[in-house]
């Protein structure tokens, strides 16, 4: 074989088609070097994650060594700055859980329905307008949300608390009531004869409608009578956190719904299903795992939010009585870490410094586990659904 073959001009490549041993070795080395550099760059995020885990675990362990596990997880008395300090974080864990639950209740129904609207119901031109508007919610800085919650929403709740609650209840329950009346009157008249069906439906519809309207009016009266003493409470925080988690839930759910594909929808219509039946019984169950992943992402957003809860939740380390009383102030893990970091210092106050790392470790563990669960769900669905 001749070594000095003319360089091939095939496609403008500059390498010779037949290379010497040395040239081959050189090229192999170059490939290896390139691959290693790219691998290192790509794994830098993994390395950063490992670093974070290592340093947080390293600084959290001393707290458990000094104070033990029992008080931290079971006591509700949080007095870190006193001389005989008490580090009972149970009320703080409960507070985090309450606002996350509230945020889910606000964000998931709204978000999944909005995603359903965006993917299946709205005409294309409206969708082009609606999607950017929802995504703009994600662009607002969290401190602006917190400021709004503290300066606008909290005084509003204090001055017109009952009114606000009853308006909110109406907004949520009235559409549901209309749907319920229609569905109920439909279902109960299926056994009627053909001629009696329409008057039956109307009659039963009016009866059901009257009953439900009466119930709603009673509820409104009860809610208007409530007076919210302190506007910085769990409800305030939950609503704002729900609005913050909304864009995440909507985007991921919409992706999941779109990924279901036209064939499934067309098949369902071909079998004679109505639009509602297609959406509720074919499309949504098919996108189930993606929607669950969206919910878990929304949960993680709500759990990790610091500025809003620091400003708007009241920061009272107390479990509300009863536990579902959202009108009382609560304290979350993130706000405690942010609030206590300044004075808790390494040289002079050991347990007070390390307890914050213990809280950070709990948050990390929760995020890690929920991320893992979400991954497993999506992966299993991919295997099964295809």
């Amino acid at each position, binding site marked *: 074989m001749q070594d000095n073959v003319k360089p091939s001009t095939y496609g403008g490549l500059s390498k010779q088609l037949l290379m010497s041993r040395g040239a081959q070795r050189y090229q192999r080395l170059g490939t290896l070097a390139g691959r290693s550099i790219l691998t290192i760059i790509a794994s830098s995020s993994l390395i950063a994650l490992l670093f974070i885990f290592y340093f947080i675990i390293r600084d959290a362990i001393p707290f458990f060594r000094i104070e033990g596990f029992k008080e931290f997880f079971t006591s*509700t*008395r949080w*007095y*870190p*700055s*006193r001389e005989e300090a008490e580090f009972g974080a149970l*009320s703080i864990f409960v507070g985090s859980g309450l606002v996350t639950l509230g945020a889910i209740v606000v964000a998931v129904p709204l978000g999944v329905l909005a995603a359903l609207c965006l993917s299946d119901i709205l005409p294309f031109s409206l969708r082009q307008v609606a999607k950017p508007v929802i995504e703009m919610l994600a662009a607002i800085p969290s401190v602006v949300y917190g400021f709004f919650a*503290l*300066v606008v929403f*909290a*005084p509003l709740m*204090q001055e017109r608390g009952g009114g606000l609650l009853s308006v909110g209840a109406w907004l949520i329950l009235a559409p549901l009531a209309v749907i319920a009346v229609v569905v109920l009157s439909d279902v109960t008249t299926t056994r009627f004869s053909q001629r009696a069906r329409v008057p039956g439906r109307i009659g039963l519809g009016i009866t059901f409608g009257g009953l439900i309207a009466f119930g709603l009016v009673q509820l409104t009266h009860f809610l208007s009578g409530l007076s919210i*003493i*302190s*506007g*910085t409470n769990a409800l305030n925080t939950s609503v704002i956190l729900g609005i913050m988690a909304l864009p995440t839930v909507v985007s991921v759910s919409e992706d999941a719904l779109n990924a279901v594909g036209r064939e499934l929808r067309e098949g369902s219509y071909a079998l004679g299903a109505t639009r509602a039946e297609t959406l509720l019984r074919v499309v949504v169950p098919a996108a189930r795992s993606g929607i669950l992943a969206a919910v878990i992402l929304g949960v993680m957003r709500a759990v990790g939010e610091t500025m809003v809860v*620091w*400003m708007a939740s*009241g*920061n*009272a*380390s*107390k479990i509300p009585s009863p536990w579902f009383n959202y009108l*009382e*102030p609560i*304290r979350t893990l993130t706000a405690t870490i942010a*609030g*206590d*970091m*300044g*004075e*808790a*210092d*390494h*040289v*002079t*106050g050991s347990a007070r410094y390390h307890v914050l790392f213990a809280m950070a470790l709990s948050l990390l563990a929760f995020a890690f586990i929920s991320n893992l669960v979400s991954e497993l769900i999506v992966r299993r669905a991919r295997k099964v659904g295809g």
Partner: protein
Amino acid sequence: MSKLRIALAVFTMFTFSAVLMATDVLAEKQTKIIIDGSTTVGPIAKAFAEYYMSMHTDVNVTISESGSGNGAKSLINGVCDIADMSRFMKLNEYKAAIEKGVTPVAHVVAMDGIAIIVHPSNPVGKLTVEQVRDIYMGKITSWKQIGGSDVAIVMISRDTNSGTYESFEKLVMKKEKIAENAEYVGSNGAIRQRVQSTKAAIGYVGLGFVDRTVKALEINGVYPDPSTVASGVYPVARPLFMFTNGYPKLGSHLFSFVTLYLTPKGQEIVEEIGFVPITRYEYD
């Protein structure tokens, strides 16, 4: 690369290093004073610094406000020259300082009163220290029990990393625990904002934060104003400190800065911010 690009690159590098050297030379002529510590004393330090730097252009004062505890830590580690603190140094801070060869010296630059504030529409106008303590302990839960309307009291406190909180704990709570349902906010301004928008709220702020939107209560019969605070008649008053490592060398810039509070101009600055100069102790 073309010759033009190489020339441009070399020129940029030269200018860059020249600028670096110039600023380095300038910087060496300046005396630096680094201050860290309390968010309450911070405004005083900043105002002093602005005045002092305008009088002496070869001095550069940098101020951070990361909390009294952090200020003490910085002084102990030799990172700062002055530690602003709204409370005195704790015993274990002194111990750590001695171990590192630092001898903290306290300079009282101003007096601060902690005013107990309520909403302007609240009929209650005076309380005793014990009543305030009982409110924050949760023993008194309704305004009706102390002469107001029948509404539950909303207690608002500063977060535990604040010097204002520690002074309140020492002067009012006196070792008793604050009730579980007290709300915590992050700054003097936040307490004022909460109290002015919540009719049933009670909170505490530094004297300089009392304005027309909130009402300050008489405590033990004494109304918080500059003369009652400086003379110590108002019970919830505290000195504001600047700690240095040993007494600063006489005639140095650090010495002049730290003794600014004794000059008429320094007292004027302190009053403008809303604190009380320690020289105003005549009470009639």
